[in-house]
């Protein structure tokens, strides 16, 4: 998925906001048959009525002005739905989120395919009853094991 950062200073009307959200979510499986796939004005108003999308930044005449945060909120809701969360769960978790938190959530989630593959974790018995589980994505497994082995000589088969 494309980064949303270029929208950071953006100002949208309702249609523009929906278009930007649809663009951001392109290729992401965002719902089942019952939820609307493409964000439209009706859906944005619905999210507003649930407190999932903030009130508009301002009004230009009779048209509401939206920004980056609104875009992030829509993408975050859709991404979380794609990850299997219900709207009720999202409503409990989303309010009070900072823009940075939304940024992380929206961007990353949309990158992950709907059924994220389980992470390959490495579990090693250092000594009898002492198990270590390591995440190769977060630590250098060999290096950590090397230093741990020093603390538990003979534990590793």
């Amino acid at each position: 998925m494309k980064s949303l950062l270029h929208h950071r200073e953006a100002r949208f009307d309702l249609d523009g906001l929906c278009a930007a959200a649809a663009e951001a979510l392109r290729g992401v499986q965002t719902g089942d048959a019952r939820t609307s796939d493409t964000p439209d004005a009706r859906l944005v108003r619905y999210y507003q009525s649930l407190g999932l999308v903030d009130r508009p930044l301002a009004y230009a005449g009779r048209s509401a002005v939206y920004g980056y945060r609104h875009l992030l909120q829509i993408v975050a809701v859709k991404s979380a739905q794609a990850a299997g969360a219900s709207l009720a769960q999202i409503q409990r978790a989303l309010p009070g989120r900072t823009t940075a938190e939304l940024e992380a959530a929206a961007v990353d989630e949309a990158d992950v395919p709907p059924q994220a593959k389980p992470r390959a974790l490495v579990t090693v018995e250092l000594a009898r009853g002492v198990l270590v589980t390591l995440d190769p994505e977060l630590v250098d497994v060999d290096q950590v094991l090397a230093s741990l082995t020093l603390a538990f000589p003979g534990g590793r088969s």
Partner: protein
Amino acid sequence: MMTLAPTLPETRDPRGFGALVALHEGREVAFPLTSVRVRTEIAGDCARTVVEQSFANPLGAVLEAVHLFPLPEDGAVVDLELCVGDRVIRAEHRERKDAERVFAEAREQGHKAGLLTAERADIHTLRVTNLPPGESVRVRIVVVERLETIDGETRWRFPTVIPPRYLPGTATGHDGVGVLPNTDAVPDASRLQPPMRLAGGTPLDLEVHVAGPIAGVRSSLHAIRLDLDDGGMRLAPSATSTCDRDFVLAFKTRTAAVALHAWTDGKFTLVRVEPPIVARHVVPRDAVFVVDISGSMSGEKMVAAKRALTTALHGLSPGDRFALIAFDDHLERFRPELVVYDDAALTAADKWIDALHPRGGTEMLPALQAAFDGETPEGRVRTVLFVTDGQSQDEERLVAAVANRRRVARLFTLGIDTAVNGSLMKRLARVGGGVAELCAPSDDIEGVVARIEARFGSPVATEVVVSGGVAARPDAQTLFTGRPASFLVEGAPSVIAVTANTATGSVALSIVPARSSLPLGPLWARERITWLEDRLTLRPHEEEALRPEILATSLAHGVLSRFTALVVVDRATRTDGKPVEVVQPAELPAGWSESFRGAPPPSPPPGASGGGGMMRSVVVGAVGAIRSLAMAAPMPKKAKGRARLDAMEMEMEMEMEMARAPAPPMMAAAPSGAAREERAMADAKPADPASALARSQGADGSYGSDARRTAAAVLALILLGSTRSAGVRQRTVAKAFAWLELHAPAQARVVLTFLDRAEAGQAVAVDDVVRAFIDAGTEGALLRSVIDVTRG
């Protein structure tokens, strides 16, 4: 034993938002408001309520919780306290913009602070800022109010939720914390609507203490527990409750009704005038019925509204005219003009009402305008009955529109909901010269309508005024049967005088006020503010004079108004960081269609909603009861045919409906699903023979123009508890008896002996009726019909 967890570098959680959600799963508290505790003391017809709202911060950042919530619309908010641990800090009452400034400064400086503002008579906003993660505070709000008395019953209604309300107009801006924009029709709408909560609810801990001997306690919504306790009573919901409906308590006091009461606290005086009992003065009526068929009326509310309309319609008298108007975002009329009340019109109107089906938005203004349209000829009175849940944000425009048409007709409002818009219903009735009735869909709707009917035609006294002090509401009042009028007067005169006009001439009464230990100042001020705000709605050009008067009254008596606020600051604590604002979502009211929680459907396919093609909802119970009468007593062919036809039509329609609906998608199915639901509810209601009798009565008051059947019907109604002056079916009895007197004097004499007995409060038994018929040499078949009907 060694446990090892790799030190996580400062990195984004790769599971992203899913993880945020997961983190919150299993957590008890997801929203800031954790509980609401309500403690009410009721003495006489006054109540003092302490509402305690607890807030906790479930986030990792400093929180500013915003709570949009209702308080009783006639209540005076007199105090607010912030409780932080053991410390209790009392709020200051200031002009709203000063209070907002004090609050903003406290927020800036990191102090915990609270701010309570009133947006409407009922809708309030509470802000609690600088709540650190994991901490909690409590806010106590004190409300005093005077309770309404309706037909000898004192009622207390405590709202706990603001339902999703329809907003008319075009968006113009958004400066409030609510989820709807301001519009040209409702310029303050962005302050009124909280987000809707999808799951769970806030626990409500409610307890009421009623002092003094009381009787006939009932609560229309929650189940209640009664504990006798030194003469008074303590009541609480028997099961776990959440904030999803009004709590309604009604009780009778054992004090005898006297014409005039007055109490004084030395500075203010409360005067209560009981309506005199006078003979019903019958004036030919033009009755306009306006019914809300917007989407929010779906389900049991629509069933109740239809029942109300049918009952009111059948209560009309020969010589009356009527009109039926149904509205959602369109207007539907039964006939373009007022229709003369006869059998054909009644049959057609019943069918029209049965076919009504809730769907779209709630555009009330055109419907109310239409109700007041046209001329009412000399010698007739026009009454408008507005049946709705009141779920619209449109208040100021409607109040102004009704007030400007007041001389055309009196407006009576019937609000039906588990969380009814009492503020709108009462204001409309007040400016419309009528009275409001609020009830839940599960209430005895026919009884409620019978009460409205008793008041409909003409009031028992007009131009009711007090002298001896300045009344908070200086306008003359109107007295209706069963509805006492109250005046709050500034000053403590030694004698209070009341004058009024009745059908038999003008009346003057006077009384020496008794002493009261209850301070009446806040109640006087609240009523004064309400009166001034009504004026402001009707005369916006007088704002320069009215605003300062509202402000001054509000500040002088310590009663919250739209132009003031209660602000409290805890200067002992300080937090760092800008608080994150979270608006507390409100529950969907009990009994509302679940479809309100879902996203609205794209747009209905043309021809899918309402109209003649939709199935009708037929009250099977009524048909069944009419049939049992038809079998026992000879019934004219036409009516007999009608009952059979209804039942057959219904079966055919059900089959056709099933054939017509081949598994549509979830959203699109909602309307017909709701219709099925309504019919199921109508069916579930056991056949009420009295209701069936009311419905099968002809427009002239007779039953098939048959003297014996008409007499049987009246006797059956007496056995079922109605007379000409009491009971749910008093209109039915009165009309039938009037017909008998004119067309069948012999039967009328037999019936009258029983009517007199019942009206004198004596018991009438089936055996007595049987004997009377034998004495009069009447056939056994007719007797059986009476007995059949009473046994339902």
